């Protein structure tokens, strides 16, 4: 079985400050890990993924995420937040090397960046 936890329903940061959105996961084997963003009245958009290799993954819009195997975490980060980053963020996990294709999503974290 695979699962994802996003422990914070809401994250508030001031514009220009660094932001972190937390994600922990559980999977039987090695994980594929993903972050998606959902802006109001728009569909989910892919931000970045970790498959293998470097633990620090860079993605769209200046976001990055750090894979930590020992802590089973994949936190999303950005050095300097923008008001336009305000959105709903979802972490997802899929087990590596299966053909099942199923990704499990967290329940999302609402990020609010205040000017």
């Amino acid at each position, binding site marked *: 079985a695979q699962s*994802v936890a996003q422990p914070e329903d809401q994250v508030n940061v001031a514009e220009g400050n660094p932001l972190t959105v937390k994600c922990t996961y559980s999977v039987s084997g090695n994980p*594929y890990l*993903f972050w*998606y963003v959902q802006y109001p009245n*728009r*569909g*989910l*958009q*892919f*931000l*970045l*993924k970790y*498959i293998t290799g470097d633990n620090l993954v860079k993605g769209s819009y200046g976001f990055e995420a750090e894979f930590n195997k020992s802590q089973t975490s994949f936190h999303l980060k950005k050095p300097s937040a923008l008001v336009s980053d305000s959105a709903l963020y*979802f972490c*997802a996990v*899929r087990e*590596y090397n299966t*053909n*099942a*294709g*199923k*990704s*499990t*999503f*967290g*329940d*999302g974290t609402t990020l609010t960046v205040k000017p």
Partner: protein
Amino acid sequence: GAGVSQSPRYKVAKRGQDVALRCDPISGHVSLFWYQQALGQGPEFLTYFQNEAQLDKSGLPSDRFFAERPEGSVSTLKIQRTQQEDSAVYLCASSLVIDGGYTFGSGTRLTVV
């Protein structure tokens, strides 16, 4: 096309009615997925196709739910004898490769009254 297209955007069905939701993925995307998203929750997996083959349907909640992708492109999710608990946003996504990020459609919001 440029993105994943879903139709209709909104569907209101009377309890007991059958509905069909359509997904037109990005041309050339081998993998196609259906997810169900309830209000305030993350998407929940329903089923997965690789080309025309349905490789995983473990998330379909009951035998009232059926999905097909007969020619490996357009997919249809059919719900028979709709119930109130079927009310949700149904999301379709496609990806070029199995380990790629998904491209999601805008979803179909189904309301069963």
